[in-house]
């Protein structure tokens, strides 16, 4: 997934977008390049400016300065109805006074197609989203999932260069959401159109995207593919927002040109440059590591990397997984370890003394 995007042609390019709502600085210098056929996500907590940025691309929102280019054309002054983008709104915005087919064919009004051609295009679009034969139904009588599909069909029937989706799955229940995630990925592959998805759900972004831009307070904190974002977050804040990250305090020093980190409870280790996204700090630092990079050692097992002694504080059993909160000797703070359950192997009990295997390469050092 990392290699494919390298030879993607740039479709959307944004340079230093600034936007104020009155006194409120909503977008603070956004720079982004989004490729053709890419599934791109804008991820961030509520209120960070994701919708504003999406609406800037769609042409619904003016900005103070900067450029939005689509296919090399400056979009300043181009209104939403003249842009090669279409939007799936958070509320789906299905026209309640029209039938499903009329909704889907709405955008074809000015296409110059004959009535029969429009009907055929609408039917094809409905088939694509799994609503074949629903054309004659009244739009206001559809379920949430069906509305969402109609909104997709209505946008895709126009064959836009970019499809913009504002939290399209947030109104659905969990099962439906997971199903739609898979369907959206398939659909995007099938049509090959660039999708830009806004979401506050980091799991959703990781599952669906080729690349993710993490936003905080109107700024892009990091833009990378999901694997890099998960393994090598560029700041503590990104690390904390994506998945679960354990943090322990540490002391840093350079010895014979080697970067040495002394992590509380784990001991000393050398780290590589790419493990220090903010540069190598001198003195006090924080070290982060994911729960699955630690392993509890059962009797007879030996550590593949390094080993540390700990006590189990809490056990959370999930069926396929068990989460252990453990405290390393000499450390007050508990860290989380996720272990895949294996048939025939007991879940350990609270209070047990354990040995934990950890790998120095999985650490990320923050200032």
């Amino acid at each position, binding site marked *: 997934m990392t290699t494919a995007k390298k030879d993607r042609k740039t479709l959307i390019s944004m340079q230093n977008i600034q936007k104020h709502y009155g006194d409120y600085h909503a977008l603070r210098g956004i720079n982004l390049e989004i490729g053709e056929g890419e599934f791109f996500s804008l991820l961030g907590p509520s209120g960070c400016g994701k919708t504003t940025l999406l609406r800037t691309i*769609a042409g*619904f929102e003016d900005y103070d300065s900067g450029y939005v280019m689509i296919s090399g054309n400056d979009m300043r002054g181009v*209104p*939403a*109805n003249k842009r090669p*983008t*279409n*939007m799936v*709104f*958070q*509320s789906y*915005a299905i*026209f*309640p*006074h029209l039938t499903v087919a009329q909704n889907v064919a*709405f*955008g074809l*009004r*000015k296409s110059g197609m004959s009535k029969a051609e429009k009907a055929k295009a609408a039917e094809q679009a409905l088939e694509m989203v799994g609503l074949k034969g629903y054309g004659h139904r009244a739009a*206001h009588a559809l379920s949430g999932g069906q509305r969402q599909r109609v909104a997709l069909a*209505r*946008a895709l029937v*126009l064959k836009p260069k970019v499809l913009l989706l504002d939290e399209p799955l947030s109104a659905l229940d969990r099962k439906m959401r997971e199903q739609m995630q898979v369907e959206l990925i398939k659909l995007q592959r099938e049509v090959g159109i660039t999708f830009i998805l806004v979401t506050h759900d980091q799991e959703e972004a990781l599952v669906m995207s080729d690349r993710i831009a993490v936003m905080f307070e109107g700024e892009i904190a990091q833009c990378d593919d999901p694997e890099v974002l998960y393994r090598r977050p560029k700041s503590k804040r990104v690390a904390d927002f994506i998945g679960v990250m354990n943090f322990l305090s540490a002391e840093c020093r350079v010895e014979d040109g080697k970067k040495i980190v002394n992590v509380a409870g784990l001991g000393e280790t050398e780290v590589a440059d790419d493990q220090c996204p903010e540069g190598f700090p001198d003195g006090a630092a924080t070290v982060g590591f994911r729960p699955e990079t630690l392993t509890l050692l059962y009797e007879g097992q030996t550590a593949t990397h390094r080993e540390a002694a700990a006590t189990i504080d809490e056990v959370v059993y999930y069926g396929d997984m068990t989460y252990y909160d453990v405290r390393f000797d000499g450390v007050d703070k508990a860290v989380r370890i996720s272990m895949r359950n294996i048939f025939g192997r007991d879940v350990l009990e609270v209070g047990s003394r354990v040995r934990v295997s950890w790998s120095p390469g999985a650490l990320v050092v923050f200032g």
Partner: protein
Amino acid sequence: MKSLKVYAIFYLIFLYAPIFLLPLFAFNSSTVIAFPLDSFTTEWFTTLLTLSEMHGALLSSLKIAVTSAVLATSLGIFAAMAVSRYSFPGQKGIMGFIMLPLVLPEIIVAVSLLIVILRMGFSTGAWSVIVGHTLICTPFAIAILQSAFASLDPSLEEAAYDLGETPASTFRLVTLPLVMPGIISALLISFTISMDEFIIAFFLTGAEPTLPVYLFSMMRFPKLLPAVMALGTILVVLSVLLIVIAEFFRRRGAKRTGNDTGGFL
């Protein structure tokens, strides 16, 4: 709880009993408005047909009611749209003043309008009744239309725009059809209010009286009293019918856009 129930029952009797007496005497063959009732007749309704002055009054009432309803609803559309789309300084205060005629005694509105019109050197006539009725109907129209516009999801209009429509065609294809039930409801309510209104019409009507004003003038002739009852019956039935239809349209609109706010019934 129990005393509240008793209170409610007495209140309803007090409110509606006189109105139920109207049809009772309208179909009673005696010219004296008193119990016991005589025999059933439709004579008074046929008498109405022969009163040519009444036809003139009906015509001028219809003319005034239609014009006032259209004017009040048009003004209401602009006001309701402005309030639901934009927020501007002093919005609450301005809306308060627009809605004030709802609670202002009509006699105040009537007398002050009369003074202004006469002082400016104009003479009263159908047009001045239209002005007065538009004034008192507009708040009702706004209240109904505001709930129609408020229940309209703004992203519907954005979606139409996003799909290539212009602001004008978006209004025609999306906004108008969705608030149409509210518009019809506002038209019907305004029409009904204007048809039934007496005080403003009485002061400002000039040479051609409206139906309620004519009805009032008929009261001086005891012989015509049963015919007055008949006319009153027709007006009551018509008003109730129109308001029920208006509410039907308002509810249909609310059901379509999926949320019900406000309304008079």
